[in-house]
């Protein structure tokens, strides 16, 4: 038998190996699926972001272009004198405002920087001179100018668009002020999701439109410095300690960068969802595999244990048979050699007994002593003879007869032999014999000897007061007749259980048993093609089980 700790180790090894081989592919699969999904999802998000960014840029560019074109159209379709007429500018402005209410005011500036005409709510700037201002030079040089958003004298966030017209040797400038709120509405839209954001930055990272979160208009929003680049770029930028995905693009008409911040929830929610799904699948898979592994390894181990047990019992019975065979040979040799001297001792004693009949010895004062002594010698020679004859009986090779035997009859007959002895000791022998028990091809005399041995032993084991139960029954597959002899005796201690079939093993007093009865029984049953087994627990009697093949 392998020790149980060896089995525990084997079990752990099996479980770990199987788990390893099953779980590693499962984990790799789960990880790969998650990664693939993440990549696909990110690609989708980026594409979406690019799309929005591109659209918004176009909208803003279009807006600025339109304003610029409008101003140019106005400036180039009329001469300066036309605008200097009182009321003209107001009319033009009213027209413009009808198209776009974000126009705050409109003014004409001559080539010396003087505000010559103004229409709008800030009359204080009417007399202003812009000659020293940077934008004045730029608009003269380039023909148009779009400013950053600023507070200015109006103390209101706005920006200006100015166009200059060369009319002969004169230069004049048409300048419109536009409420920068327009950008907020252009930039923000539903497409951004609940937590997305969008804003415009000038080249110094000053906000040109109001973001939904964080910094205010004209505040600083540091996304890092980006040189002007064509198209849309997607960048992961950390703002306030959190990473966000940004779509970045530069406007065509103005040195402003449009930044669209992705809604992190939109990005993360499906990922979190996928992650938890993957975890649930992995956990489920783990439980299934672990359960399956434990179940399988238990089955395999119990089969292994079972076959180990069978092997052990086969080994035990083989060992027992070969032990019997060699012991038998030795016993036969010893018995034969002892029989000759025993015969001589017996005859010598007999001779002495014969001589005791002579007259002169009869007169001897020790006559009785001699006679007793001879009787004892004879008695003990007979005892020794019993032993040697049994030994030879055990060892003798003889082919058992194979008659059709009615086992029930053999048992009933055996019980009648022992009935008197049993009754004397208040032991009840009851039987439960299967009525239609099939006949068995066997040797009735030898079977009787076996039953006699076992029941006799049972009577001796019980001593007084008890019962012996004898039962027979036929079983199939293999076809066998089973005889069970159960006694209410003290039982056989575990350490003696595997010795009781050994020759000369006896629990009886010296002179009462030879220790050969069960040995002989065992070898008889074996020769008859059957098996003799014993089951016993100390204090609960013993059961002898004889199985005989039916054919």
């Amino acid at each position, binding site marked *: 038998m392998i020790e149980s700790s060896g089995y525990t180790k084997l079990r752990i090894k099996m479980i770990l190996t199987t788990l390893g081989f099953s779980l590693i592919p499962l984990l790799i699969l789960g990880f790969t699926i998650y990664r693939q999904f993440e990549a696909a999802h990110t690609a989708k998000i980026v594409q979406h972001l690019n799309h929005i960014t591109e659209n918004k840029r176009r909208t803003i560019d279009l807006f600025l272009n339109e304003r610029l074109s409008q101003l140019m159209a106005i400036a180039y379709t009329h001469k300066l004198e036309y605008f200097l007429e009182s009321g003209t500018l107001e009319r033009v402005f009213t027209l413009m405002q009808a198209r776009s209410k974000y126009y705050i005011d409109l003014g004409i500036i001559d080539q010396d920087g003087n505000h010559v005409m103004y229409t709008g709510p800030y009359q204080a700037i009417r007399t202003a001179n812009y000659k020293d201002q940077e934008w004045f030079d730029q608009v003269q040089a380039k023909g148009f100018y779009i400013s950053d958003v600023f507070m200015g004298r109006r103390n209101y966030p706005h920006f200006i668009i100015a166009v200059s017209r060369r009319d002969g040797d004169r230069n004049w400038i048409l300048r419109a002020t536009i409420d920068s709120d327009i950008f907020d509405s252009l930039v923000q839209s539903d497409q951004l999701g609940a937590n997305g954001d969008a804003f415009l930055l000038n080249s110094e990272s000053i906000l040109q439109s109001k973001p939904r979160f964080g910094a205010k208009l004209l505040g600083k929003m540091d996304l890092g410095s980006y040189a002007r680049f064509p198209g849309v770029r997607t960048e992961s930028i950390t703002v306030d300690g959190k990473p966000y995905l940004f779509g970045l693009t530069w406007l065509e008409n103005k040195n402003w960068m449009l930044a669209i911040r992705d809604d992190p929830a939109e990005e993360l929610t499906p990922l979190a969802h996928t992650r938890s799904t993957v975890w649930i699948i992995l956990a489920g898979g783990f439980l299934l595999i672990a359960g399956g592994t434990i179940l399988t390894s238990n089955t395999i181990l119990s089969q292994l244990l079972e076959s180990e047990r069978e092997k052990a019992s086969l080994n035990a019975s083989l060992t027992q048979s070969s032990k019997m065979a060699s012991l038998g040979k030795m016993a*036969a040799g010893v*018995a*034969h050699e002892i*029989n*000759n001297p*025993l*015969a*001589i*001792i*017996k*005859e*010598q004693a*007999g*001779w002495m007994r*014969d*001589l005791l009949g002579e007259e002169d010895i009869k007169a001897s004062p020790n006559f009785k002593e001699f006679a007793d002594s001879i009787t004892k010698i004879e008695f003990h*020679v007979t005892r020794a*003879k019993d032993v*040697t*004859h049994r030994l*030879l*009986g055990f060892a*003798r*090779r*003889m082919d058992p007869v194979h008659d059709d035997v009615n086992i029930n009859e053999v048992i009933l007959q055996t019980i009648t032999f022992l009935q008197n002895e049993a009754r004397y000791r208040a032991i009840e022998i009851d039987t439960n014999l299967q009525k239609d028990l099939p006949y068995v091809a066997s040797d009735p005399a030898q079977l009787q000897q076996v039953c006699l041995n076992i029941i006799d032993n049972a009577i001796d084991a019980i001593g007084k007061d008890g019962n012996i139960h004898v039962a027979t029954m036929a079983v199939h597959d293999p076809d066998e007749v089973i005889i069970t002899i159960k006694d209410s005796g003290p039982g056989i201690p575990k350490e003696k259980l595997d010795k009781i079939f050994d020759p000369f093993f006896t629990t009886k007093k010296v002179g009462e048993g030879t220790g050969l009865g069960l040995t002989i029984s065992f070898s008889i049953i074996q020769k008859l093609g059957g098996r003799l087994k014993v089951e016993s627990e100390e204090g609960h009697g013993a059961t002898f089980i004889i199985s005989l093949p039916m054919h």
Partner: protein
Amino acid sequence: MDIHILLVDDEADFVETLTKRFRIRKIPVASAGSGADALKLLEEQEFDVVILDVRMPGMGGMELLRLIRAKYPLTEVIMLTGHASLETGMQGMSMGAYDYVLKPADFDELLDKVRRAAERKALNVRAQSGN
């Protein structure tokens, strides 16, 4: 009725004692320590019963039995065997022995069997002479 017995056994002490026990009962016994000696004695005189040990050095009991049955068919043979097996006894009987006795034998049992063997011999002799 006188019974003439030939005792054949290689155990000298056994032969000696058994001889004494027969003689004290007024039964004449001749003895031989081997198969060859026994054949010599058989040639010299007629015996009613031969008591024959199965196992002897040289010529064994079984072979001697076969010779006796062939040469002196009227002489009865009782086998003595230390092999307490039916087998040997049965084998001897199938070869024509009258009976067999297991060693160590009970003297009275042996004597009883010798007497019966002698009776049978006498019967056989009478039957033969009657023909």
